[in-house]
């Protein structure tokens, strides 16, 4: 029975395997979705892509220095690399004739290349290999030692990260809103928009490195952008958008697990495909900005014009 295999068994007989995978997918997508709203609204989606590639040398150097793949050193390494990349992008863009897109292109590909070289030299005997960097290893989580509620340490860390991002957004809602909408007014009121930008990039770097080993450097950008892209078609209030993007993250990670079971494929790309599917559906049927309602409105105005 296919239905039983795809939708029931993962939560019953195979729960010990799929629960950590689903939980990881959920925490990664929720953390990415929340911060992604601000990337989309500030029109810096590409910086998300840049950071996700730029943290690689930071991770590699932290690994070389400590010899361990876990915990704090990796986050610190990624944080430093992410912020350094952000600063280089800003400096290139403001102190030369290069536009921001070119500055991003130069910076992130160079950082990524350095990271790949470092890993090729030093990572040959570890599980920090290039497959992991590119595609993530979410489906290998069940092999890890569970520490809490049947979840391994990395997943618990990711849950804490998602919670922190949520709390930061609640605490600094007003400051993030103003500096995203009207940086000049924010600055005139003593909220430094550049500082907010760097803090946002720092949080983004931490989220990306948390997500890194699970979904890789390429897919994480989809998880940053898709939820916000979907929710901004459904609402024009920021707080509603934030809630809807979390809902998108939940549905896409749940859908991702089931697609992965059905097709026997990795969970991370399956979650991205599920998220893109939700985006496509919303784009078509959204009440105000959807393709169908636009078409209906055009037809109605044509009829009025003919009459």
């Amino acid at each position: 029975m296919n239905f039983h295999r795809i939708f029931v068994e993962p939560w019953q007989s195979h729960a010990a395997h799929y629960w950590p995978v689903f939980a990881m997918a959920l925490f990664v997508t929720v953390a990415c979705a929340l911060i992604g709203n601000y990337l989309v609204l500030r029109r810096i989606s590409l910086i998300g892509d840049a950071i996700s590639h730029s943290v690689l040398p930071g991770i590699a150097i932290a690994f070389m220095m400590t010899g361990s793949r876990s915990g704090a050193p990796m986050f610190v390494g990624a944080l430093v690399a992410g912020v350094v990349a952000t600063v280089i992008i800003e400096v290139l863009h403001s102190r030369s004739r290069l536009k921001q897109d070119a500055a991003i292109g130069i910076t992130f590909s160079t950082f990524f290349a350095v990271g790949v070289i470092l890993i090729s030299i030093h990572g040959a005997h570890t599980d920090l290999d290039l497959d992991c960097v590119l595609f993530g290893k979410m489906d290998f989580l069940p092999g890890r030692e569970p520490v809490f509620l049947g979840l391994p340490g990395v997943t618990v860390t990711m849950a804490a990260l998602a919670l922190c991002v949520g709390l930061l957004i609640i605490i600094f809602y007003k400051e993030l809103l103003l500096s995203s909408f009207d940086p000049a007014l924010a600055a005139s009121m003593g909220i430094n928009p550049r500082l907010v930008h760097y803090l946002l990039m720092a949080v983004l770097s931490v989220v990306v490195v948390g997500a890194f080993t699970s979904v890789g450097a390429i897919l994480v950008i989809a998880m940053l952008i898709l939820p916000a892209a979907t929710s901004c078609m459904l609402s024009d209030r920021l707080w509603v958008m934030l809630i809807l993007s979390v809902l998108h993250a939940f549905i896409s990670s749940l859908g991702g697990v089931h697609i992965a079971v059905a097709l026997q494929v990795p969970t991370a790309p399956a979650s991205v495909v599920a998220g893109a599917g939700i985006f496509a559906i919303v784009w078509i049927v959204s009440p105000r900005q959807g393709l169908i309602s636009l078409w209906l409105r055009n037809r109605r105005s044509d009829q009025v014009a003919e009459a």
Partner: protein
Amino acid sequence: MSNASGDEPALEVHDLTVSYLRRPVLYGVDFAVAQGSLVGIIGPNGAGKSTLIKSIMGLVPVSGGWARVFGGAVKEQITKVGYVPQRESVDWDFPVNVMDVVLMGCYGRIGLIRRTGGEERVRACAALEKVGMLAYADRQISNLSGGQQQRVFIARALAQESEIYLMDEPFAGVDAATEVALITLMKEMRDAGKTLIVVHHDLASAREYFDMLLLLNMRVVAFGETGEVFTGELLQQTYGGRLTVLSEIADKVAKGEG
């Protein structure tokens, strides 16, 4: 408001110089505005009108000189100074409604982390009422006309309850009814003792709108009562053939520094 009264000028700008890539954009700007004045800044495109108010607000780096508000640094009295950026400087598709935007005017006063509450909503409603936009409080901002957008910006400035306002092209691209409503409101604000400094692009209306005019073209060409400085000769100096002479000076200064 102890230091708002007395002889202290509301705004004093001394020898303000701003350069961009070593080329001066503003050169030795010097003027002082008394409290309760409605001042227009006029000059040709590229004269540095926006740069002047941005540099007073501390939004662009200054290479020399200073600006003071009621005798103190602008940074230390941010609640006394309200800034109204150009309407085009923000994304009007942003997911906020009219009330959200006006409430932003209260952010400076309530400080970090704390939320806007009932008191701020009352203030925002009063501000919207004054610009005739209360009925639009729940409207998404992308559904507003240019004039309505500008009214919302002015309502946000009113909600700031500042003593002095610096406004960047508030009349650009607004309908005639809005323009009349806004200048009436600005004159009311002036009569209530507020000081308004307004970048303006239309010479024809400048004469009737403002008490005082600052004619600007990289440097101050003239500053004074509208009747005294709105003369053919001074306007010619501001807009006319002097433009090339000033650029030559700018080039020389740039070379001298380089």
